[in-house]
């Protein structure tokens, strides 16, 4: 005889308690905040782009446009060469738990802020798109592939707890592609990496620059959560 045949029905008193208890529901804006944090960690397309429905809570259509633009930028610009630009599959997930601070202010060199023309940043913020390339920035598919490789490599290192390594990759990206297509994503990751490396002051300063440059970025929710996790002593 199986265990199942010995199972008594639930006592009426307990059954009543379960029936009376309301299902816990999320606090206001919780799904948007969690989604924003996930957006830093993983490439998250907007489902509306695929089925035409905007079944999303908490984020505006504009914010979703920003997110979709950022996250699928590589695919959009590299249409037809998607395989070529991502020859090596790399992890795209970052564990954003903040490790214990090392307390050292010199564990990783600061990444130089990319030079930018005064006119390009506002355009980026208004449209949600990375501004058209001019000057040293190249939109050649292979260049985009290198950009993506560097950013994904940084994301992978961050996921494995190697904030220093992540900062190194992001610094290389900033040096080679100061106004690259993925600079917004790079800066968001850099803020996370600085926080994880125990460089709270640098993370806050970088975040202030980010906020001024991309005031409507979908990454801001995650960045604010990162800043909130930094001990006041950092």
């Amino acid at each position, binding site marked *: 005889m199986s265990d199942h045949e010995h199972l008594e029905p639930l006592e009426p008193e307990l*059954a009543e308690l379960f029936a009376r*208890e309301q299902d816990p529901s*999320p606090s206001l804006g919780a799904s948007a905040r969690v989604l924003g944090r*996930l957006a830093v960690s993983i490439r998250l397309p907007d*489902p509306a782009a695929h089925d035409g429905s905007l079944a999303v809570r908490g984020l505006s259509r504009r914010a979703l446009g920003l997110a979709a633009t950022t996250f699928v930028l590589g695919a959009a610009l590299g249409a037809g060469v998607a395989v070529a630009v991502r020859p090596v599959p790399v992890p795209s997930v970052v564990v*954003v738990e903040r490790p214990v601070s090392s307390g050292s202010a010199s564990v990783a060199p600061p990444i130089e802020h990319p030079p930018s023309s005064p006119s390009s940043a506002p355009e980026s913020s208004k449209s949600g798109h990375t501004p058209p390339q001019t000057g040293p920035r190249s939109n050649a598919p292979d260049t985009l592939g290198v950009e993506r490789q560097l950013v994904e490599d940084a994301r992978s290192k961050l996921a494995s707890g190697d904030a220093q390594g992540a900062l190194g990759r992001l610094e290389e990206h900033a040096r080679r592609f100061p106004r690259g297509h993925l600079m917004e994503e790079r800066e968001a990751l850099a803020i996370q990496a600085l926080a994880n490396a125990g460089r709270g002051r640098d993370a806050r300063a970088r975040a202030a620059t980010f906020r001024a440059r991309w005031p409507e970025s979908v990454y801001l929710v995650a960045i604010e959560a990162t800043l909130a996790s930094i001990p006041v002593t950092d």
Partner: protein
Amino acid sequence: MTDLDGTRFRRLFDAHFDFVWGALRRLGVRQDDVEDRAHEVFLNVYRKLADYDETRPIRPWLFGFAYRVASHARRTEQRRREVIGVDSSVRDPSASPDEQAIDRQERSILLAALDELDIDRRAVIVMHDWDSVPIPEVARALGVPLNTAYSRLRTARTELRDAVKRLNRTRGTVR
């Protein structure tokens, strides 16, 4: 992970975020922590999305992630409290005694009683008696043998009944 997987994940998130949130709360994750834990759950779900068997109901599968995250968080918290010497029976050690008393009074009898259960048993009774998930599906989601799931359910019901009686006496409620 392809963009298609990302789209699939996004739809899953939109459809089941509330459920995952509720599962974490019913597993005893504190309100202050539930957002962090939900983030953790969905990161894990994203990593394992390819493993999901679409012929199975998705909520028990998601509940399994919530259970493992809540279980890990509880063990971590217990270790932390052991190290710093805080009474593990106190839900929020930073709260004053008055605040703790109010917290105990305001929480429902059911949630307060569930807090007294081991999380392995709590997960089984929440899934089966609250969410009406059949025990074979519970066992599969939690990764335990079928008889273990039945055994945990019986023990959980007994402990829950005893805890409810005790709490009713403490709160002065005659049932």
